[in-house]
């Protein structure tokens, strides 16, 4: 029974992680096709570095991801604060609308964005991409920050007021330090989401502005080159790092 349990667990983990493992290993494989191990090499990493189209796409991705994450974090944090602090009409509706954005299939969002951009006559490219990314990152920030706010004693703010703190001081001395980890976590989460997105991006960007996932997607159509393995490995490393960082931040005890 015990043996069965363990083999079951191992099978599941193998199913989940073997493909990723193979991809990572192949990024160091001297063989161009990856069917057999021909020795360890950094050759593909060097090649990737020289591939200007790819590095440009990568830089574009970083630019969009950091801008989208920052904008989404600013708007999202303010929204979370409003949801937490104030009573206003349609408050429940506002928060469920966020969930709708979060739960909608990417393809639905993608089509929606496309239709809107065309209707408004917005040229597909950097700006359309940025707007789309901010939108789909937003609910994640709101929910992360809001969850943190809800986790605190609801009388903290009254306690600060009772001790003579004005509204702006309550914000600066109590609210901001308390939700800061969640704000950073929300930013990291948004950054990762934006960096990884293919479906929505492929609908709302044009030839003038190419980002990494789309570039990779088009490269893969003509066969998986070792550089793609390298790129995927790098993206994986970045994503893992950011997700771990955001988890650690949220877990940190006060």
């Amino acid at each position: 029974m015990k043996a069965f349990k363990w083999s079951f667990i191992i099978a599941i983990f193998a199913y989940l992680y073997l493909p990723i493992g193979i991809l990572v290993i192949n990024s160091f494989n001297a063989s161009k096709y990856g069917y057999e191990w021909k020795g360890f090499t950094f050759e593909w990493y060097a090649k990737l570095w020289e591939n200007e189209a790819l590095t440009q796409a990568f830089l574009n991705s970083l630019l969009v991801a950091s801008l989208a994450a920052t904008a989404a974090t600013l708007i999202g944090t303010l929204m979370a604060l409003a949801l937490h602090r104030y009573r206003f009409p349609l408050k429940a509706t506002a928060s469920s609308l966020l969930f709708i954005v979060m739960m909608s299939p990417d393809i639905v969002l993608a089509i929606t964005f496309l239709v809107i951009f065309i209707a408004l006559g917005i040229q597909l490219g950097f700006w359309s991409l940025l707007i789309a990314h901010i939108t789909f990152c937003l609910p994640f920030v709101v929910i992360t920050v809001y969850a943190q706010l809800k986790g605190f004693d609801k009388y903290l703010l009254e306690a600060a007021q009772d001790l003579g703190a004005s509204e702006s001081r309550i914000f600066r001395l109590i609210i901001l330090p308390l939700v800061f980890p969640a704000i950073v976590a929300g930013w990291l989460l948004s950054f990762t989401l934006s960096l990884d997105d293919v479906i929505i991006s492929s609908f709302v960007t044009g030839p003038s502005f190419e980002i990494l996932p789309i570039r990779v997607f088009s490269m893969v159509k003509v066969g998986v080159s070792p550089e793609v393995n390298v790129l995927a490995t790098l993206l994986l490393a970045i994503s893992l790092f950011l997700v771990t960082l955001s988890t650690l931040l949220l877990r940190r005890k006060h």
Partner: protein
Amino acid sequence: MNRSPILTLSNISKRFAAQEVLTDFHLTINDGEFFTILGPSGCGKTTVLRLIAGFEQPNEGQILLNGEDIAGIPAEKRPVNTVFQSYALFPHLTVFDNVAFGLKMAGVDAQNIAVRVADALAIVRLSDFANRKPHQLSGGQKQRVAIARAVVNRPKILLLDESLSALDYKLRQQMQLELKQLQRQLGITFVYVTHDQEEALSMSDRIVVMHNGQAQQVGTPREIYEAPRNLFVAQFIGEINVFDGEITRELGEYQYQALINGVEREIRCNHRFTAGDKVHVMLRPEDLRIDCRPNALERKGFPGIVLERNYTGQTLNSHIRLENGQTVMAHEFFDEDDPDFDYSINQKVGVDWVPGWEHVIPAERAGKS
């Protein structure tokens, strides 16, 4: 002791949406007293506290602090501080910074802050914990920090909202004692909110008993316990037996003959009654006497049978069903000379009391308790 009023609430009404929480509420709190607002949950006691603190505004009425209307003054500018039920310590600040918070807001200079915070922490015996964070403290320690954080500002009134309810029994008893000592030491007016009548009786100089948004009775613990003004107060504070009776004859000043459970008895009270008035004759369980002499003719009081008897260590608590179906409770202390003192179930007994120990109020309801 004669004290001057520090806080007066008059004609206060407070509504949340359609619900009226306080109705024409009046209260006067004296300077330097330990005042308790006691009542079941939902009676409006916390709302009274929040009105004084300034977290809520009354729909009608006046709140006077030292004769000055504080209606327009926001919570952060009122000279009162609150100890919250959940303590509400700032989790990201050390104990020192928590206690210093109010002083910093008031613009006190760093040197003075250090001295006053050290004093406050010494009073609550937490001097060694200044650099800890709240999550490193026990419940009782958090409680003390919350108190230090409030009293360090030298408020005119300290408000405590169910402050001990989160602590376990032993710690709660200890903190009750400490709170009372602290109050005496500081000389600040304490307004304490609780639903625990035992806590209220043991700590307070005066108590207001609240029910349905209104003050039922204001008085010292002794007055409230021994002379409850109505049935609600009587039954909320401790346990009580209520006998329904009817005045049959006036015997003298505040002395009447009354028919209780079919028996004529003499009663004493400080109400004016006339013959025919219905009354409640109330007796605490510890004021009842059980007569267990075997001869039924010799026994005094209302006849009944023992339904249940519980040994509590200090007292023997008996439930006795009287002949009219009413069940009464009697708590008797053990007698050193009679180690076998006990009753058997279904034993026939008489229930009596020492004349003059009864408390009589006009009847509020028909029927039997």
